[in-house]
């Protein structure tokens, strides 16, 4: 398990680093919201899920999608807008989805996915399935009314959903203390949802907390809320690489980066094991990048394909 978690955080880290390079080189148009620094959360949460479970993701979603097992080549191809992408190039970074793996989509609207995940989890239970939904969102989303409404529905109807708040300290440039009155876990508890703060930099701690939450959900005991504390090592979005936004001090960034999930998990492996995983990840990503770069661009004549379920 240690090795698996390490492989996941390492994969996400290196995937993001490569994606950032592709943004710089222009292969990825429009930029991305890098997940660098937050890998432990996606890795830990998804390791606690089973094959019939579902997740929803965010604008900062590559980590979730990879941790849930999506093909890195198809994710990279999606970021490049290629036909072989997860969404056939129609979604891009903020909408990556793979329904075959229960990835019901990244969502570009902050706070929107929590209620979608709640509905999906409720419906799967109605269908007699044992599924649980995990839904990711940031600290900023805690201020969106529609997410708070979702907490209420999930608690009222004891829906098997795990709310995963990735508290990275900021919503873009807005510090969490200026944006969230009261506490994050207190807000969830106010809806009668058990809420815990977890060290999001440690994938094993996240896995442990999520496993408990998933077991609770499967046992019919309803939602759990996990506040995973973390730090965004990089920009809010790659556009920040071009502009100078001065909302974080250099000291703060240095301190924030000092607890790195890849290092924390890596230290649990022998040097040899770690090197082996690193090499495996590199070759996987090398292949993925190659496949993505070599994939066809979609045909502009098919720009409106999939707009409706059928002919209209």
């Amino acid at each position, binding site marked *: 398990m240690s090795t698996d978690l390490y492989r996941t955080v390492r994969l996400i880290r290196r995937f993001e680093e490569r994606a950032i390079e592709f943004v710089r080189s222009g292969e990825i148009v429009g930029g991305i919201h890098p997940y660098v620094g937050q890998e432990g959360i996606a890795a830990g949460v998804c390791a606690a899920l089973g094959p019939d479970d579902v997740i929803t993701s965010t604008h900062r979603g590559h980590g979730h999608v990879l941790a849930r097992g999506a093909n890195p080549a198809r994710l990279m191809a999606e970021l490049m807008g290629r036909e072989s992408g997860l969404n056939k190039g129609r*979604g891009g970074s903020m909408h990556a*989805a793979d329904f075959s793996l229960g990835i019901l989509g990244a969502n570009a609207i902050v706070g929107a996915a929590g209620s*979608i995940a709640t*509905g*999906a*989890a409720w419906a799967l239970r*109605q269908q007699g399935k044992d599924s649980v939904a995990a839904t990711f969102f940031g600290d900023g989303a805690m201020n969106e009314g529609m997410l708070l*409404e979702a907490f209420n*529905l999930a608690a009222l109807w004891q829906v098997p959903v795990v709310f995963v708040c990735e508290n990275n300290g900021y919503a873009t440039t807005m510090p969490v203390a200026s944006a969230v009155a009261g506490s994050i876990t207190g807000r969830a508890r106010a809806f009668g949802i058990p809420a815990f703060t977890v060290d999001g930099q440690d994938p094993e701690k996240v896995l442990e907390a999520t496993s408990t939450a998933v077991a609770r959900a499967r046992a019919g005991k309803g939602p759990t809320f996990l506040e995973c504390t973390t730090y965004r090592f990089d920009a809010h979005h790659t556009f920040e690489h071009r502009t100078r936004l001065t909302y974080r001090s250099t000291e703060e960034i240095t301190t924030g980066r000092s607890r790195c999930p890849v290092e924390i998990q890596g230290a649990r492996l022998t040097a040899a094991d770690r090197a082996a995983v690193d090499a495996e990840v590199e070759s996987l990503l090398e292949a993925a990048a190659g496949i993505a770069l070599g994939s066809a661009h979609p045909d502009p004549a098919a720009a409106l394909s999939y707009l409706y379920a059928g002919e209209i």
Partner: protein
Amino acid sequence: MPKLSYLKALNRALADELERDPAVFVLGEDIRAAASNVTAGLHARFGSDRVLDTPLSEQAFTNFATGAALVGMRPVIEFQIPSLLFLVFEQIANQAHKFSLMTGGQCKVPVTYVVPGSGSRTGWAGQHSDHPYSLFAHVGVKTVVPATPADAYGLLVTAIRDDDPVVFFAPSAALGVRDDLDFAALAPVPLGVGRVARAGDDVTVVALGHLVHDALAVADELAQRMSVEVFDPRTVYPLDVDGLIASVQKTGRLVVIDDSNRTSGFAAEVLAVVAEHCTLTAPPRRVTRPDGAVLPFALALDRAVQPGREQLLTTLLEMS
């Protein structure tokens, strides 16, 4: 033949679909007690798992329906008032509508949004009297505004079975319409297919929902002076362009009576389509709510802001 009211037709359509397809469920505010009567008897018959009373959390329960649809359900949401659709505009236009294309066709979002009591509710005033079908047509969400009990039944059934989101507007002023109907003949009505509610030669009146009945009454009244064709598109989007054009090409003249606001409303679209395709013998006319209309409370003012028989009659006479 038994009489079926529009309201009862909606109730029957819901019951039939709940019966037919276990993936269908209904959610909304006060639907177990059936405050609007649309869901009368459904909770007793289908139980709490399929008839869900929601808290006042429109945004979350609209997305909740999307989530359920993404994993195979066919939710039907009842909204108590038309302006609640404003509150969930993001959830319908930006989420439910967009999932299919954004995911490259990986999923479907078969949710039906029903507003039983759209338009003026006579005395409910500014924030409860909108009829916002044109907005949904503009963003490309399938939108229906049936006029008759048979169409209300048939289009609601079709909406529920459709694999895309569909907004279903039941005009407040149409809920009481009753027709003699052979219940066995109730059947799905396809989206995007209009009907000639009355054939005529001199002018085409395009009308939707309750205004179809007003248009028919005016056509009757004018029968000695002109032969009015009443075309009811039934679906606002997709629009039955062929049916519309066929009618206007025959009559050469066009009036649209439309209970939404004038600017960029349904009537504007009808005029635009006709301008693109037909040559008219007189300038087309719109009989609509005024630009930016907010319905005042006082009854005479509420009525003054809505298009009705008198305005249609005057308009037709001016054209003749």
